[in-house]
């Protein structure tokens, strides 16, 4: 995984989980209106320990164990935000967020709009998402397509330790509701990192070229970034020099960075875990085709999860986009006219 160069003295190995924890801690320390809430976020520190120690440090009123009820959690957060707080809501697992969808779609996403800007809702909704951890049913969904299809929501997903910190700080500071998708299989990924170091803190809506190349662009985000980086290394043996773009933000979508990259390389593959039909890759491929048609040497291809309900853990390796599937797809970019 690529890391941002920082002063060696200021850094030490940190996990994405620690960076997320630190982001909340710093936000809570700086702004008394930031409240963390959800099921198990208090004494337990969350089932993934992302909120570890927050209740102890800031009290149970600032880091609150709620009843087990996602619509209630998010609905209460709406009311709290209406009164001027900045709730940071934890949805324990991707598929556990579904009971809250009416609150999300009918109220959270629309409140600014329906009140003509009078009542923005600065809510951050943290959703651990994606597979690859051997979780049983309802613990591994990639639900980003639902979120990106809902106007009014901002949707971001970090793939690195420093982005986890920076994007979460930016999300909590945002005056709009943000779906903060946490790639749970990267929770324990490590990097040399320090929040004090002058790391590159991304603004929401800024993609980043993680690896430059000339033969084709891999466009990806979240849990698929390390897979794409590995694929790009492996592709060198095949004579392919791949560029990798990490979107970091699905809404807003940094079209300019993507388009510039594809115009340079002339070929593109979108990679994500969620299903292909109606997935974010479909939108990205359409946009790239619209904007880069005359630069393209081949159709924009996609490597995605299959269009199936998330499989049981013993079969998930066949479903998730892996290095081989990416390389096979890259090979198909050798388009014969």
């Amino acid at each position, binding site marked *: 995984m690529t890391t941002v160069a920082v002063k060696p003295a200021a850094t030490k190995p940190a996990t994405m989980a620690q960076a997320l924890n630190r982001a909340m801690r710093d936000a809570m320390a700086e702004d008394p209106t930031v409240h963390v809430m959800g099921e198990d976020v208090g004494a337990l520190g969350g089932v993934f320990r992302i909120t570890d120690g927050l209740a102890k440090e800031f009290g149970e009123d600032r880091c609150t164990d709620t009843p087990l009820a996602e619509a209630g959690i998010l*609905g209460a957060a709406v009311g709290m935000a209406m009164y001027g707080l900045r709730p940071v809501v934890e949805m324990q697992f991707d598929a556990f967020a579904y009971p809250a969808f009416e609150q999300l779609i009918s109220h959270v996403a629309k409140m600014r709009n329906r009140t003509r800007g009078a009542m923005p809702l600065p809510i951050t909704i943290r959703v651990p998402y994606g597979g690859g951890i051997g979780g049983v049913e309802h613990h591994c969904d990639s639900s980003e397509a639902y979120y990106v299809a809902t106007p009014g929501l901002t949707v971001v997903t970090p793939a690195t330790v420093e982005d986890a910190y920076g994007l979460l700080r930016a999300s909590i500071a945002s005056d709009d509701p943000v779906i903060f998708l946490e790639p749970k299989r990267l929770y324990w990924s490590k990097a040399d990192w320090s929040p004090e170091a002058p790391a590159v803190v991304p603004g929401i809506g800024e993609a980043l070229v993680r690896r430059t190349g000339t033969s084709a662009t891999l466009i990806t985000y979240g849990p698929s970034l390390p897979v794409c980086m590995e694929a790009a290394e492996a592709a060198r043996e095949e004579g392919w020099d791949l560029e990798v773009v990490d979107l970091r933000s699905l809404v807003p979508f940094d079209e300019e960075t993507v388009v510039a990259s594809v115009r340079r390389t002339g070929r593109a593959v979108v990679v994500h875990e969620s299903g292909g039909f109606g997935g974010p890759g479909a939108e990205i491929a359409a946009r790239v085709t619209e904007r880069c048609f005359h630069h393209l040497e081949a159709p924009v291809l996609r490597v995605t999860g299959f269009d199936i309900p998330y499989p049981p853990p013993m079969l998930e390796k066949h479903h998730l986009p892996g290095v081989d599937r990416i390389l096979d797809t890259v090979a198909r970019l050798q388009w014969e006219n």
Partner: protein
Amino acid sequence: MTVQELPGAGASHRSTPPPAWRPRTDAAPLLPDPEPYRVLGTPAADRLDPELMRRCYAELVRGRRYNAQATALTRQGRLAVYPSTVGQEACEIAAAMVLEEQDWLFPSYRDTLAAVARGLDPVQALTLLRGDWHTGYDPREHRIAPLSTPLATQLPHAVGLAHAARLRGDDVVALAMVGDGGTSEGDFHEAMNFAAVWQAPVVFLVQNNGFAISVPLAKQTAAPTLAHKAVGYGMPGRLVDGNDIAAMHEVLSEAVRRARSGGGPTMIEAVTYRIEAHTNADDATRYRGDAEVEAWKAHDPIELLERELTARGLLDESGIKAAKDAAEAMAAALRDGMNAEPVLDPMDLFAHVYARQTGRLREQAAMLRAELDAAEQEEEGDGS
């Protein structure tokens, strides 16, 4: 197979509770009265505050006139739809009257009258139903949440807001309104549970008007009353005659007082009746008989109070006329406001989606701008 024949029947499936757990034994005071609470026409009416009741009367008359005017505007096509509260005015008005200025009202789509009774301009209250924008007012300015069309989803908002206010040390109570049908929704349950666990300063007002569009209460719930539901969450449930504004005012005031003093939430079931159809799109004759409607018309909230006040010499012809005149003035202002075509800016479509417009929306806004400009030029061309 009966329960007794099931394998393991008779054996105790319940392990002995650990010492830390005890069932609550203080639930009895939470139970609602067996009959809806009434004041008008009972000895309790002796303690009525004449000034307050005269205000209630004027508000009821105004509310009835508001309902009639809004319904007329629907027939004229000025409103896309209007869910009437004829027969329910006492609930709507009492809800608004018991709140202090700093308190918040969380209305459903049917509760525009409560918003008007709280002081909102009727035109602003009806903007959603006219169709020019979803919310016609600044919720913070009036402390009235946007009218909620999805059922019961505004209830957890009320809980969250009240909780937040209490965390900040502010003296704020939230009053959330929902219908009988809304009590079947999951959000009703979650809001009640959160409110009780958090002891949030919230009052839930359920207007049981008999029908959720066409489905009667008997097909909505098997509970003895809706007020009984409160007990399961650990808050008092109150059953009150929703057409008796004196009873409504008393019960709501008590609940607001309890919330304000840190006593936690209350759920109130107001038993009332929707005299008119669900909306102008509904045909109420398909699901209920005239006799039932007529029986409820005989229990009219305005007549109940008028009878009480005139019998006690607290209201005379001039008082009745004054209330009617004020109501007519409101209706005239509402007609004028509604007859003025709203000025709409199509570019507003993109103005309030995000704090910072996305590139995608900028593109789409430019497309609409170009379409509008082209249409304008065409119009100018036609004119010359």
